[in-house]
């Protein structure tokens, strides 16, 4: 399970137990294409913040990728194992909401320049907590 905050380049990536980080990176990058496709296609639903992307990629990998785009084109990507069927759509949505809130908190910090890798400890802790909960 991993999570990534993207602005077309990774601002933040975090993975939980599985060590296939590189694979996650790759997965996240490919999913970005899908995300872009989705947000560019939507002309009127621009205000639609939440985007749920489900069932991505290789069936063999058997994991799902969820996407979420903020109004400032910052993308959140969550990759979860399909074996973890306990995760429901609502849970994913709440995770994204929490992520978004933490992200805005980070943004509020005047010492944080948008585009910098996120180094906020509070953000890290929130993400870790979330991922632990999900597992």
């Amino acid at each position: 399970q991993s999570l990534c905050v993207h602005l077309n380049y990774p601002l933040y990536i975090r993975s939980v137990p599985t060590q296939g980080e590189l694979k996650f990176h790759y997965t996240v990058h490919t999913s970005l294409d899908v995300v872009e496709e989705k947000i560019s296609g939507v002309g009127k639903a621009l205000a639609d913040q939440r985007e749920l992307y489900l069932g991505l990629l290789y069936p063999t990998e058997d994991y799902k990728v969820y996407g979420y785009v903020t109004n400032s084109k910052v993308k959140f990507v969550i990759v979860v194992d399909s074996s973890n069927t306990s995760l429901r759509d609502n849970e994913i949505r709440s995770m994204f909401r929490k992520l978004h809130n933490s992200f805005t908190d980070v943004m509020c910090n005047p010492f944080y320049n948008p585009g910098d890798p996120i180094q906020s400890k509070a953000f890290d802790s929130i993400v870790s907590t979330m991922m632990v909960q999900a597992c």
Partner: protein
Amino acid sequence: MAAAQAGLPVRLESVAGELPLPVFVGITNELEMRYPNHPSTNESQPHILGSLTGSAPHPPADRPVLRHPDTSMDKQEAWSPPRSPGISPPCSPSAYRSYPYGAQRNGTDTLLAYDGKVPGRPSVPQENSSPSHYSLKLQSEQPVITRGASVERLVERAEIDYSDEPWRITEEQREYYTNQFRSLQPDLNALIMGTVAKNFFTKSKLPIPELSHIWELSDVDKDGALTFPEFCTAFHLIVARKNGYPLPETLPATLRPGFVEPGVVTVPPSEATEPLIVFDDNMMPGANQLEMGSVDLQMTSRPGVTAKQDRREESRKPEFSPKRIPDPHEKPIQRVSTLKPDSPQELDANMKSRTRPRSYSSTSMDDAMKKVEEPPTPPPRPQKTHSRASSLDLNKLFQQSGQGSRPSQHSLSAKSGWLPPPPALPPRPPATQIFSFLPSSEKSSQKAVQQPNFADFSKFREEQESSVRGGLSTEDLVPPKSDSTLRHQGHAPQKPVRRKLHPESQSATPPSATPYSAATLTKSTQRPPPKQKREIQMAIRKNRETNAVLTRLNSELQQQLKVVHRERVTLESQLELLRPVAST
């Protein structure tokens, strides 16, 4: 005694070395002095030598006992003593010493002396406070003080203020933070914008990630701006970090904004206010905020702090004069009281703004600016509004709306267009009147110096400015008047918007407004250039709104005219019809 003795040699040395140095030398460095004083009297001496000459007297000031011989010096170096008092926490001198601070202070010679001073500390802080006040006054004379230096010094000073718990803010520290806050934002109830706070804290030379972490800890409402408690927290964390304390992962209980130290917000004695004011003046040499206003604010800020508690006061303007009278304190305090009504209102506005979600930051600046305008000129406003009202009906409207909702003035809503004109004008005349209230002649001198600087800013009509400047310059000559000019200056930066409106609205009513506008102009001119833009924009906006209103009014009147005309035509035709009948 031992401490005193230990300090005495140090002091004497410093005194001897620095005695020749004029007290005012340190004016520019007052801030520096203040800070260094704080950490240690002994330390201040070498420090002072390095930075300011004033520091030397400071250590002596710290020692009450030693003060006697150094009385003369103290007076001169009054500023240095303020440093120490501000720094040395009266509440926990001994505990203070036990801190590893001593270790941290290794850099300073005073460290050793410091330890020696422990026994004598308790008495020292108290005594120091009085000299510090005195010195603060002197410091006020210094128009410009590098904020960066002050920040660093502040950190040093703040170090000493630590009480038993490193995460508890002592009263002195809080005073210090209050001054710093005021230097950034005259209104204690307002918020400091993120960028402003960032620039300020960056001067502390801490690494950015740490500052970022500190911000995360202290900005509890996550609005991108710092309230006064948040600011104190952040400042305190910075100070702690500079002293070597590792940053906590979570905010300690004592640093939470809701934590209220007993007696922290108490109004300081009048003498304290004076020095504080001076202090602030020094601190904000280049501050965008109203420098002059800060002086006033400081005085008022003290009361403003209490005002916070009193928050329930309402219409500032109306209460302004009545408030002044009841004020038992000296005039500066009176002015403060006038500000009090403002502060509660502004506090309310601030609270409202604060509760707003993250979208606050953009507006808070304007609010802060407007709020800033409020505090300094509460007393003048009521009077001004009256004068304004007579000049222009619209002004009355504004006044009414403005008085009714002071906070709204600050709001960026369209209403602001209405509000600004009335309040802006009234304050001006009163401001001049307020000079007399300003007690400090020192300030006047400062102001005199500052005024020329402000005069350089050409925000508003040049002619007005020049006239104001001329008027102000004359006032500067007179010490009491200089105070007023300061006020104007202070008001000016605080009310950039107002001034803008006034100059523009004044075009409609030039005569009466001219003197006031001039004052405001000067004030506006004093505003730092960065603010000018904002003020100009705000003024433009207000003017536009006013124009829109007037246009609407005009169109309505035109319509009415048409209707009446039609009626007239109808009546005439009827008359014509009847006339032949009558004639026949």
